[in-house]
């Protein structure tokens, strides 16, 4: 008969690799990173092997008064515009492919391919779309939407660069959220749709009056995921514009990256900026949960 303590020992032995790795590379960075935000700690400290020096809120004052950070924060918040567009398009796409018609699996798969495309490859391919003589300008000129003489490279123009990158985020995201919505749609009882159909509701009415209300929990969850991803946008920026032109695509995480390893090697200031971004993330999550909670009784009353 095995004793209780030997079971416990075996259990912890099996858990050891996971626990040790998570402790060092997941939990410790959150704690130590938060601590670093309140200290002076740079590459010079690494060289001379001196520990971080506590400076209180000084890094936060530095960050907030730094114009670059404010530009970054503004651009990260601007990136949130993608969220409603992406979510509505994904939900509509999910409704569209949630039909049993020939070849539908092929379309679903095709819509998912951008999701499994590396951001580096996206950068290679979309650069050719956005460049001055690229595909986007060709299409716009073909439909006489722009004048060839005034054409420009979309990633080189401060007025359009961020929007162009958002288009790529949209392209890589809509298949991902479509699959999540598809899962939700398949749990909507078919009778409901049929009843509405009998009542003479058209596709547009069915979408807004049945699908959207019933999918509300999924929509809120996806919107939260999408919002958090939007304010944390970094990889797209790094591979397309590196924050330019004229800082028009400079985001908060770009600031964190440049302050830490990109340019400055000032880990204290970078961590402080990261903490401020985490606060923005928490505010967004809180708003989302408030909406979800307010939503619950209302739906109960209706039913």
């Amino acid at each position, binding site marked *: 008969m*095995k004793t209780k303590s030997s*079971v*416990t020992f*075996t259990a*912890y032995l*099996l*858990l050891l*690799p*996971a626990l040790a*790795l998570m402790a*060092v*590379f*997941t*939990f410790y*960075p*959150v704690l130590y*990173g938060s601590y*670093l935000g309140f200290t002076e700690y740079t590459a010079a400290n*690494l060289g001379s092997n001196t520990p971080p020096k506590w400076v209180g809120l000084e890094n936060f004052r530095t960050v907030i008064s730094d114009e670059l950070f404010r530009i970054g924060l503004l651009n990260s918040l601007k990136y949130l515009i993608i969220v409603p567009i992406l979510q509505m398009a994904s939900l509509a796409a999910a409704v*569209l492919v949630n039909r049993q*018609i020939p070849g539908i*699996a092929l*379309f*679903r*798969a*095709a*819509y998912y*391919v951008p999701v*499994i*495309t*590396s*951001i*580096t*490859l996206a*950068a*290679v*391919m*979309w*650069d*050719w779309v956005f460049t001055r003589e690229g595909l986007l300008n*060709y299409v716009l000129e073909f439909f006489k939407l722009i004048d060839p003489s005034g054409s420009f490279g979309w990633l080189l123009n401060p007025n359009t660069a961020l929007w162009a990158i958002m288009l790529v985020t949209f*392209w890589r995201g809509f298949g*991902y959220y479509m*699959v*999540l919505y598809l*899962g939700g749609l398949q749990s909507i009882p078919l009778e409901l749709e049929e009843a509405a159909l009998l009542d003479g509701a058209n596709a547009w009415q069915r979408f807004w009056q049945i699908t959207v209300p019933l999918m509300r929990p999924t929509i809120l969850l996806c919107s939260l995921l999408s919002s958090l991803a939007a304010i944390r946008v970094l*990889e797209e920026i*790094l*591979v397309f514009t590196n924050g330019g032109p004229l800082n028009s695509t400079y985001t908060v*995480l770009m600031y964190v990256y440049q302050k*830490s*390893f990109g340019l400055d090697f000032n*880990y204290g200031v*970078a*961590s402080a900026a*990261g903490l401020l*971004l*985490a606060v923005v993330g*928490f505010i967004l*999550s809180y708003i989302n949960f408030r909406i979800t909670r307010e939503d619950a009784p209302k739906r109960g009353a209706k039913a």
Partner: protein
Amino acid sequence: MKTRVAPFKALNLGLTYVLLITIGLFAVFPFLWTFAISITDKTVASGVSIFDFPQSLFPKAITFNNFIEVYRVFGLEKYLLNSVIISFATVLGTLLVSAMAAYPLSKMVFPGRDLIFGAMLATLVLPSETNFIVNVLTLNKIGLLGTYWGVVIPTIATAFGIFIMRQTYMAVPDSLLEAARIDGATEFQILWRIMIPLSRPALTALGIFTLVNTWNSYFWPSVALLGADNLQPLSVAMLKLKGQFNHDSFNVAAGAMIMMIPVLIVFVAAQRLFMRGLEGAVK
């Protein structure tokens, strides 16, 4: 009545397909175009430009020379090998760590179990976007910065992997384990001989997701391999390729296809897995 409905239905279906194809083109045109560029024979006398629409989408002369050239001139095999090593080490590590940790969390009773599982799930909501700073400092301290290990080790213990494996183990009947225990099997033997063989579909799924994610990942390998350019995976080196062959988009396109084709093969083979939204359920 029937005659009135039928044409309307046909029109509706037709419009649906037009819409489906339009969105489909939006999703895949970059691949079609890049593929077309990669097999275009750029040596034809009249000269070709990738921006010569719509011809550049339908190459007249086809060649595989771009693939050979990018492979030889850029030394693509080095980066391809790095990608393979990093991806497979990450997959193996993730499967091992997750399969081991999930067993006690699902089938053993011991003090602290719920607390540990709760803490692991909490990592899903912890703000992790700036973890890379401390992780690079840690790797630097233990001398793993700029090595394969440094890229792989911080990424293998994930709540996602452990959660997936735990869900699968939960479905294994306790009576099976009890029988094995009565026969004198140790917990390690049970894990190795019963749990892991029974959870092969879940291990495959987790392995495939991890493989695709690692193969594609850009930011983490680029900071963990800062200054160790010769260890970079394709996903990082690709941007260099773009810089180096700026004048020769045909080679860049060929390099891009070399990186994309393995992912596409895995995706086509395991399509159902991705479409189930398994990943999204936890992410």
